[in-house]
């Protein structure tokens, strides 16, 4: 297995790890967005969706452990890359101008990453860890939390930072895995943007509709 460890430790290996785990997390994000959109069909649909998920039995903990592992690998590799790259810069320039290429999103990847981690922890404390009952369903938790102006703000900011992160990440993972071809570069770029836009639309709409409708949605 030494070749495998050697590959993982190389600079390209670490990038593949970021790309693969990023792809899986992106996949989860998409499924999560689709699941969340059941909220638009009202309280019953949303609770039923949550109920269906939890009735999967043994698959729930397996899926959770898998997801946490992927998160952990993505975070640890990201931190290693951040520290290595900071050292590799070899000193700052007195004057720095972008020649084009790097974007707000690409430059802030490590920082938005940390912010997203904090946001996810808040999100888990809000919705995942508390015991849900017949009396207090997930819909009640969602209305209660998002109704609090502080949380409305935290969720909006968290989602915006997440969108910034994946707006670079989705394209970047394709490039890292070598998926680049003159015929498909443009369509792929459009698809990654469309995915980001779709997720942003769904996640932000959930927050805003709940606030605007004064919780009549749920």
């Amino acid at each position, binding site marked *: 297995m030494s*070749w495998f460890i050697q*590959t993982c430790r*190389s*600079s*390209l*290996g*670490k*990038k*593949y790890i970021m790309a693969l785990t990023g792809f899986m997390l992106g996949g989860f994000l998409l499924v999560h967005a689709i699941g969340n959109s059941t909220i638009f069909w009202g309280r019953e649909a949303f609770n039923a969706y949550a109920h269906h998920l939890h009735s999967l039995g043994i698959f729930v903990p397996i899926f959770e452990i898998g997801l946490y592992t992927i998160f952990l690998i993505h975070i640890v590799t990201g931190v290693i*890359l951040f520290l*290595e*790259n900071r*050292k*590799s*810069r*070899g*000193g*700052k*320039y*007195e*004057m*720095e*101008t*972008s*020649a*084009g*290429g*790097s*974007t707000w999103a*690409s*430059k802030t*990847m490590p920082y938005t990453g940390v912010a997203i981690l904090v946001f996810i922890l808040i999100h888990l404390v809000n919705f995942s860890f508390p015991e849900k009952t017949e009396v207090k369903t997930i819909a009640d938790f969602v209305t209660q939390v998002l109704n609090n102006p502080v949380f409305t703000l935290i969720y909006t900011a968290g989602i915006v930072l997440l969108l910034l992160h994946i707006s*670079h990440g989705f*394209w*970047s993972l394709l*490039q*890292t*895995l*070598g*998926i*680049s071809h*003159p015929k498909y570069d443009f369509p792929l770029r459009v698809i990654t943007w469309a995915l980001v836009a779709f997720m942003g639309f769904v996640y932000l709409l959930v927050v805003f509709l709940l606030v605007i409708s004064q919780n009549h949605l749920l």
Partner: protein
Amino acid sequence: MASKTINIIVKIWRQNGPLATGALEEHALKDISTDSSFLEMIDVLNEWLTRKGLEPIAFDHDCREGICGQCGAVVNGTAHGPEKETTLCQLHMRSFKNNDTIVIEPFRSQGFPIIKDLIIDRSGLDRIIQAGGYVSVNTGSPQDGNTILIPQHVAEQAMDAAACIGCGACAAACPNGSPMLFLGAKVSQLALLPQGQLEAKKRAINMVMQMDKDGFGNCGNHRECENVCPKGISIRNIARLNRQYLRAAFTIDH
């Protein structure tokens, strides 16, 4: 057309040696011809410094035709200065205005130790080439010129990658100090051609390993490199390197 002259202020990096602390030094230059190249402007500055009995600025240069890859500095925050696809020697003072302040710094990356002033040690790039940027050719009687057929468009792509002059601007501009565009170009120019296939897997692995060993960073797909590359090399070559390495790492059998 009569040539114009401009007055400029240069803030140029002075550093006595690899371990010395450097700082920007300011000089006012008068009547610089807009027809002179950037390096000729530094020549003028050096003449003036020499006449005053001061140490001239150390900088690398050779052909001054934009093809050797020796020259290079970060001008106002951009490697090789403000003109696209232009080496520092082919940058002309007409790109600047009267009374401009021009900040000149050496290419920086952990893999490029500063030797003196603007001169950097780029032997890290040479070591990457030594690690795999070659094809082994066995001697013997020459084969017929048309035995190995290469489609014109493939030859063109390989030539585009081979245009890399190894100046190091990609690593200098990279927020992570990574010469991945250099590596991508050097792997691509051989990987695209039949002659490069025999050693393709070993090449990708060894060259990446050497890059890591010399303290260069990891590519973050910022795309700053392709925007400063004097030869306009595309990050498509980095994607090709990524494919080559991925395949090599999982399938190499020796």
